[in-house]
């Protein structure tokens, strides 16, 4: 987690920042004048911070959730792997074009279990953001992910995918190398993988770029994430013909975990530490780990055929229509 002084705050997090600033001030004056005891005032403020965070969490608009999912201090895939797993061995490359750094993956130990863990990776400074292409994978990223999933299937290891992408990369070379085909292939192959597959939206779940590693026995969302067919900004620009309707688009799209769970499009929503995962990496990773371990055990009770059949029928039920 970044040091307090390096923390970044969203607009609506400003009340929290003010409280932290007040505490800082008090601590400084405390150091200058040891005679006055400020500890009870500080304690009070710390309590107020918790309350403010709690209140904030309860009143978040869909757009604010989108903003939280993109919080610059938010933990990304490799952070979750580091905090949840031991003995992570990253495996690189699609064996064809190159190694896509927007998609990472490898074997790791989760609890007592060897798992294959794969996800989009974002950077946390200008240089690494570029290196990671802002979490937007090219076709070779999806093909690397598929290679690793097939490897896991071969050795009968459960697969966990961590989804965090503003979309598959819309670039010239991406099209030349078949971005559509790569995502289509992944979706097609994932639906009949013989091993347990759990997909977790840990940040942004944008469209085909997310679904390209998002077909599983369980698809779950962290509390402050979103998952839908298009980003609220692009939706605004296409349907409203302006970039200014992103808040409205976020509401209309019903993209939060609560909505998605209600629609039966995801299987669970996993809580985050108070105020969001960016306040407590260990806490966030622990909650997720404590969800994943029993979930894998539960899925292992079923036969591969059962899992595949249930996966196909689960997705098969999705949709709404009138039948005259």
């Amino acid at each position, binding site marked *: 987690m970044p040091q307090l002084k390096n923390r970044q705050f969203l607009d609506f997090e400003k009340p929290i920042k003010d409280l932290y600033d007040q505490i800082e001030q008090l601590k400084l004056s405390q150091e200058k004048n040891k005679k006055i005891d400020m500890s009870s005032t500080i304690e009070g403020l710390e309590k107020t911070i918790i309350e403010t965070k709690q209140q904030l969490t309860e009143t978040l608009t869909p757009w604010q959730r989108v903003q939280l999912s993109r919080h610059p201090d938010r933990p990304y895939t490799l952070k979750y792997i580091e905090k949840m797993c031991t003995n992570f061995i990253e495996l690189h490359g699609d064996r064809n074009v190159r190694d896509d750094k927007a998609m990472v993956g490898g074997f790791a130990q989760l609890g007592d279990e060897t798992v294959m863990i794969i996800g989009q990776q974002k950077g946390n400074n200008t240089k690494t953001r570029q290196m990671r292409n802002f979490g937007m994978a090219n076709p070779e990223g999806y093909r690397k992910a598929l290679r690793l999933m097939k490897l896991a299937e071969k050795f009968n290891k459960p697969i966990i995918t961590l989804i965090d992408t503003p979309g*598959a990369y819309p670039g*010239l070379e991406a099209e030349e190398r078949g971005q559509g085909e790569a995502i289509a*292939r992944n*979706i097609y192959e994932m639906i009949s993988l013989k091993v347990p597959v759990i997909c977790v939206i840990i940040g942004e779940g944008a469209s085909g770029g997310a679904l390209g590693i998002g*077909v599983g026995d369980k698809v779950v969302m962290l509390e402050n994430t979103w998952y839908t067919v298009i980003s609220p900004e692009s939706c605004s620009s296409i349907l409203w*013909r302006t970039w200014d309707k992103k808040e409205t688009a976020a509401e*209309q799209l019903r993209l939060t975990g609560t909505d998605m769970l209600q629609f039966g499009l995801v299987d669970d929503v996993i809580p985050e530490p108070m105020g969001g995962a960016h306040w407590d990496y260990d806490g966030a990773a622990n909650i997720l780990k404590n969800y994943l371990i029993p979930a894998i055990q539960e899925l292992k009770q079923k036969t591969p055929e059962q899992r595949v059949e249930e996966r196909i029928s689960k*997705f098969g039920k*999705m949709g709404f229509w009138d039948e005259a």
Partner: protein
Amino acid sequence: MKQEEDFDANLAGEDGEAAETKVSWFKRAKRGILTSTKDKKDAPEGLWAKCPNCKYTCTISELQENKFVCPKCEYHHRIGSDEYFDILFDEGKFTELFANIKSKDFLHFVDLKPYDKRLEETYAKTDIHDSITVAHGKVNGEDLVVACMDFEFIGGSLGSVMGEKISRACDYCIGHKVPFMIINKSGGARMMESAFSLMQLAKTSGKLTQLSEAKVPYISLCTDPTFGGTTASFAMLGDVICGEPGALIGFAGPRVIKETIKRDLPEGFQRSEFLLEHGFLDFIINRKELKDKLSNLLVLFRS
């Protein structure tokens, strides 16, 4: 009206050309815009069409005779399911399947217009059942189920109905041991169905794995335009994938790509010929040869 056109063009991620194909030829005829009779599907004499590519002008019936391919420059005019069925099926005879499945505004989605109103208007305007129509007929004597998209129905957008119809078509093909073909013509996902539209990619893929296991051939034809969710699923999953000449096919729309990379796109980018060159199409097929090549292919699969 301009807004609607923008909207459909936007779905396809492209700037122009969409207008001429907004309304299918027969539909225009049916609605009296071209004045014709529905049953005979003969385009009336004396009405003229201009090729958007070479500006060659000919009568509608001449164009129809030529499968809506420009007699001069081979430009493939955009056509709809009615026209494709007429071109493909013997004597134009076929049975439509799952026509009773209609789109529904489950989310009460409102953009500049409520989705249910948009649906109502589109149904009234087009008299087609949805952005996809499924039909079973014979192609030079060979049985085939064809699911064909209509761009005029909200940009051929991929929503729950398309997903459900394709799924049922797969079940039907498995049950009847009949090969399956999808004619793609879509700007992408139907945003008004939000995540439900996205999940159709997984839903249809699940069905296609079952079709594959049953060893039923599946052919994907990509026509202008094939984008977004269709490309990221069934359009790219055919046992055989082919394209019409000059069709724009891609994942991201050209405009989005241009904005991202901040430079002009090369000539021919995302056209069928480009995809063939990069290994994503098995072949390109001129519409005038479509029926015969298709039946030849079906014979090869069968015998």
